[in-house]
């Protein structure tokens, strides 16, 4: 029998943030290799953060990603505050959580309605989906809008907020600014529940893989902006010890850095499914009730169903935000003084699409000497390729464009954020 080689290429992935492509190599009808190609040009954030004053860092790292700037700001301020030996107040901590709720709502609602749902509705875009499902898409846009409005009140604007400072906030929101949002969030909580009911009715491929789920966990909360890093296969680490357990590696076929567990040499999964599986019992009451109603319980190992986990996190974020909004009193101080000096600190928070780790070293002059940033998509990249390798045998009988389309669906369920380009490269392929 002759060697039958066949290559399927998706030149440009759509409905993902940033730029990437996919190449599938087949040999004799079986999968030889799957390559998620990232051609987002490198932007060198870690390099030009060196020599910057720590207080400039939150504004700069926000620019790594327009979809999840708050995640970058939160991991950065925590790492830098630890490096400077500063503790923030409970009031600031609560406001940061509120800000993060805004981002989860905005980013998840965007992904669910405009990027991911079109796959299940079999159409090209959210705009097109609005023709057949006007009420659901309009509801989704409104859910997203209130997330953005919260970011605007608390952060000054939704994309690249200006109000996040080292040690807290430049200005605390006024009571009336936040009180105005309460009715919006009351509507949002109910609407988010409706959305979960809607997406739970989608038709999901019967597909499961055995993931190593990794996420922050917290004894009392569904971890969002702080906690201990935990793995479903055992082990827990503080942010300070992230690099002892996880490592970014250059892999021969991609040169985009991919994260692995050092102990197993294997990829792991971060993001909504990881959080849901590790912390289900700490979701808000309405989110748990909704999960029960639709019969969605851990463990869930089906990547396509991540849209349900994402939806439950929107319910959770609306409920948590609503509680904070209702009880908000203007704090006496919104910013703890930070005097940068020699030190090193790490920070890890849960970006909408997964764990985001930062480490900074500050020199004697009080400037950043070294920065390391590990974004969620670099951690998930190996898992995406593994999923595709497992998925492909089911669809190989289909025409090429159908295969490509179904692979895109797998990739989109990860909500990959390729713009978080700190560790992604453009690659010239060495074809076998």
């Amino acid at each position, binding site marked *: 029998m002759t060697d039958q080689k066949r290559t399927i290429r998706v030149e440009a992935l759509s409905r993902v943030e*940033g730029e990437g492509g996919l190449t599938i190599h087949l040999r004799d009808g079986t999968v030889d290799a799957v390559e998620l190609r990232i051609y987002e040009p490198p932007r060198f954030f870690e390099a*030009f953060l060196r020599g910057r004053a720590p207080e400039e860092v939150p504004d700069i790292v926000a*620019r790594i990603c327009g*979809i999840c700037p708050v995640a970058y700001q939160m991991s950065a301020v925590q790492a830098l505050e630890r490096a400077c030996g500063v503790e923030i107040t409970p009031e600031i901590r609560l406001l940061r959580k509120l800000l993060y709720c805004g981002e989860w709502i905005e980013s998840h609602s965007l992904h669910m309605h405009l990027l991911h749902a079109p796959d299940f509705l079999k159409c090209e*875009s959210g705009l097109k989906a609005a023709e057949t499902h006007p009420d659901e898409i309009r509801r989704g846009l409104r859910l997203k809008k209130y997330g953005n409005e919260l970011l605007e009140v608390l952060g000054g604007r939704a*994309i690249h907020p200006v109000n996040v400072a080292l040690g807290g906030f430049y200005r605390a929101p006024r009571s009336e600014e936040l009180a105005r949002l309460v009715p919006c969030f009351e509507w949002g909580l109910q609407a988010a529940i409706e959305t979960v009911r809607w997406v739970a009715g989608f038709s999901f491929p019967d597909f499961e893989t055995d993931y190593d789920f990794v996420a922050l966990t917290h004894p009392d909360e569904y971890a969002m902006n702080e906690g201990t890093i935990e793995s479903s296969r055992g082990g827990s680490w503080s942010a300070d010890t992230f690099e002892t357990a996880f490592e970014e590696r250059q892999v021969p076929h991609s*040169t985009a850095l991919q994260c692995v567990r050092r102990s197993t040499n294997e990829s792991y999964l971060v993001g909504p499914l990881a959080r849901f599986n590790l912390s289900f019992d700490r979701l808000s009451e309405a989110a748990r009730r909704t999960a029960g109603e639709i019969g969605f319980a851990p463990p869930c190992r089906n990547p396509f169903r991540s849209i349900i986990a994402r939806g439950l996190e929107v319910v959770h974020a609306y409920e948590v935000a609503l509680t904070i909004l209702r009880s908000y009193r203007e704090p006496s101080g919104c910013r703890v003084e930070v005097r940068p000096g020699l030190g090193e600190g790490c920070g890890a928070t849960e970006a909408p699409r997964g764990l985001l780790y930062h480490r900074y070293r500050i020199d004697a002059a009080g400037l950043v000497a070294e920065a390391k940033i590990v974004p969620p998509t670099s951690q998930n990249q190996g898992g995406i390729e593994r999923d595709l390798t497992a998925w492909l045998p089911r669809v190989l009988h289909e025409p090429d464009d159908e295969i490509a389309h179904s692979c895109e669906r797998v990739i989109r369920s990860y909500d990959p954020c390729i713009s978080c380009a700190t560790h992604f490269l453009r690659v010239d392929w060495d074809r076998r």
Partner: protein
Amino acid sequence: MARPRLAVFKFASCDGCQLTLLDCEDELLAIGEKVDIVHFLEASDRAESGPYDIALVEGSITTAHDAERIQEVRRQTKFLVTIGACATSGGIQALRNWGDHADFLRAVYASPQYIDSLATSTAIAEHVPVDFELRGCPIDKRQLIEVIRSLATGRRPRTPSHSVCLDCKLRGNVCITVAQGVPCLGPVTQSGCGAICPAYDRGCYGCFGPAAQPNVVSLTTQFQRAGTAVPELVRGLRLFNAAAPEFRRESDRLDSSVERQP
């Protein structure tokens, strides 16, 4: 009249300016009725080839491949609009223009030899003629809607070129520089954001780039007199519009003035 064919393209950037289009939650469906969005990878599988009536271009040119790709976009497009600081002035990634590119590569990547990346990050207008520039890091939603609406009806977009200072007064902010002595780039930065930073008790950091005919030297001289150190001023000008000519010239002048000192 047929709806204009609109395309959105991305170069080196964070996606935030494209996202601004999706953040027009209340207007998004109406925009979709006014223009035919025929190429917008972030939002749609539809990726038709040109010609396009309007192209919104996000991001700066940082690779040889992208330098070629923008030529093709230009050839296919009737009215090319750059959206955001990256496309208009090279963006935050233009900080490499002052650094040692090889050193940057080594700092970030274990095997830098694999990387295709230019030593500079440049604005779209340095490569092809641009018909309209929309400033901001990120762009402002209202200004974006104005651009799309005006181009859909065949008139030139109207966006102001005055400084943030004027908006700040209109917003009723107390001047943060006068009252608190905080350095603020508002006097030399173009309007568009709504003077957010001073409203949040901090100085403007210039994310909309230089206003029309800004007197940057005068402003930095004033801040120096008030006690701001030169390196701090240099870093302040070298942010999201570091390579905009007015900011670049002044940051270079200040930088060399430090080097000249014994």
